[in-house]
């Protein structure tokens, strides 16, 4: 994958941060909430980057930044090497499309399936209505829906069918990157695997690049080529999927993996057995943000924030692997 001067990554984040100012109480002062804190990531064409972390760690905020729906407070997002700040939103829309979590909320209940799926074509003025209809029929077939659903409404469809419609809408303009924000979390367990399989097939068929967000490691295991683990706005570990599952380094990744091995990992938020609850992101813990919940916490973790260390493909942000500590205690 890293062949020196290959083409630039399809998608690259450079030191991206997003800080919300949260007002507490009626006259309370505004406090900064670092929803995304200095994140750098890159996706090569055809990659599926799984982004995993508990609810509230900043995954959706990161997705919105990629889609150009939120401006980062600092840092840069590059698509094919070009910063998206400079790109027209409409051009960006043709390259990056989202699939959201809740198919009951992501389809406008007042519109027919035809209108929903053809909206991107109409907004971008692609083709006339006959060719748009044809494109809708084709994409419906691709996502496994019969073309007669064109005249149906979202309320007449099941969750899985709706999510297929959302996928069709995302793919109809042949984007390069699809940002899937928890695309199966709201679906029945039996339907989840159908949608995951479909996303896998589509990726192969169209050479798509995915950012696949989930709070559950088990969901990304079969689809992802790389996995990034996020905690309180930071990427604490990133590795190829095999390496991450076989030899996780960060204690948080270990805890997430342990939770995947519980009998029914698909049901809701994984129980991380982490004891202490998820911290308040407005007042994150000092030093390593994870230290109050870490099973292997050391004295210096409480005061000093760990630096990112990387051996080629596998990077981690933890004092256990820091240069200063020298040896890995894995």
């Amino acid at each position, binding site marked *: 994958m890293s062949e020196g001067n290959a083409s630039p990554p399809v998608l690259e984040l450079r030191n991206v941060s997003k800080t919300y100012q949260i007002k507490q109480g009626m006259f309370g002062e505004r406090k900064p909430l670092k929803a995304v804190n200095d994140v750098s990531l890159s996706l090569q064409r055809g990659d599926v980057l799984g982004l995993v972390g508990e609810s509230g760690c900043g995954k959706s905020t990161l997705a*919105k930044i990629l*889609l*150009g*729906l939120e401006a980062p407070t600092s840092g840069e997002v590059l698509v094919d090497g070009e910063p998206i700040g400079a790109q027209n*939103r*409409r051009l*960006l*829309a*043709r390259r*990056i*499309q*989202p699939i*959201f*979590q*809740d198919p*009951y*909320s*992501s*389809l*406008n*209940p*007042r*519109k027919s399936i035809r209108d929903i799926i053809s*909206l*991107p074509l109409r*907004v*971008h003025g692609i083709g006339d209505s006959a060719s748009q209809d044809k494109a809708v029929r084709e994409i419906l*077939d*691709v*996502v*496994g*829906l*019969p073309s*007669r*659903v064109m*005249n*149906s*409404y979202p*309320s*007449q*469809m*099941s969750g*899985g*069918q709706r999510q*297929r419609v*959302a996928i069709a*809408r995302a793919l109809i303009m042949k984007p390069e990157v699809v940002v899937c924000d928890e695309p199966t979390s709201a679906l029945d367990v039996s339907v989840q695997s*159908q949608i995951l399989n*479909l996303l896998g*097939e589509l990726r192969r068929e169209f050479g798509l690049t995915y950012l696949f967000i989930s709070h559950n490691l088990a969901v990304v295991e079969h689809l992802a080529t790389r996995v990034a683990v996020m905690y309180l706005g930071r990427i604490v570990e990133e590795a190829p999927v095999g390496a991450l599952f076989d030899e996780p380094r960060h204690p948080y990744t270990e805890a997430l993996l342990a939770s995947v091995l519980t009998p029914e990992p698909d049901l809701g938020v994984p129980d991380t057995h982490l004891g202490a609850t998820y911290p308040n992101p407005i007042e994150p813990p000092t030093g390593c943000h994870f230290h109050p919940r870490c099973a292997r916490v050391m004295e210096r973790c409480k005061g000093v924030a760990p630096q990112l260390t990387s051996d080629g493909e596998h990077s981690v942000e933890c004092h256990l692997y820091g240069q200063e500590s020298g040896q890995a205690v894995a």
Partner: protein
Amino acid sequence: MTRTADTLLEEIQGPTPGQMLRKRVFGHQGLLFGVAVLGLLLLVAIFAPLLAPHDPYAQDLLARMQPPVFLGGSWEHPLGTDHLGRDYLSRLIYGARISLLIGGFAALISGLIGTAMGVAAGYFGGRVDMAVTFLINVRLAMPVVLVALAIVAVFGGSLQVVILVLGFLLWDRFAVVMRSSTLQVRSREYVTAAQAIGCSTSRVILSEIMPNIVNNLIVVVTLEMAHAILLEAALSFLGLGVQPPTPSWGLMVSEGKQMMLFEPWLVAIPGITLFVLVLAINLLGDGLRDVTAPENRS
């Protein structure tokens, strides 16, 4: 490909939202009654020149205050005549025009103002929202009737002045309801999806948000229409609304009030029509709310 097989098993079930709406509309008696009465009054107003047996302005001082037929009057004046001998039925028929014109245009003007403000506040939030909320509070601090009285007293009463005054005073409920409806809908993922597709802000608002809040808008339109009609009647009753000899129902009540003890029907007839019109509009609004609400739940 096997993909198709998966979902063909699950059939598309149930009627379309349009079919469901139609079914609920025809099962709602209040709504049907409201539509029927309002439709009838609308036809009466439009075809007033054809329906009215007499010129509503024509005085006949020899035939003053003749009683309606059911009180022993003649069919020449089915609802009798007023203190100037004008045919009461004809004035009532032309009065429907005034009430509906004022109700309709006042609701249209205030609806445009209030919807624009409310939707902008809900969609953009932040400073826009603060400014709109401030304006709403300023408006709510003003007593409508007193302000209307003052303006009409200064500029004189006429149909246009009354419409403008009410239109610029009654937008508060539109703004409040549209603001909260927009807030609710704007965070739905289909709005985010439309933004990610590259839709312009106006397209997102008009095509994604408005269709999902228009039912609330219609309910407020009916409320404010009834409100404006009653206010016009009140202003006219106080002599500060539309001016005589215009046949307004409020004015008819006012003109009849001196004779109320001897000829109570002079007040009762326009009073009852006013009541029926406002009742019909309110039933229509209630019915529309009932009929359109279930779709929001899914």
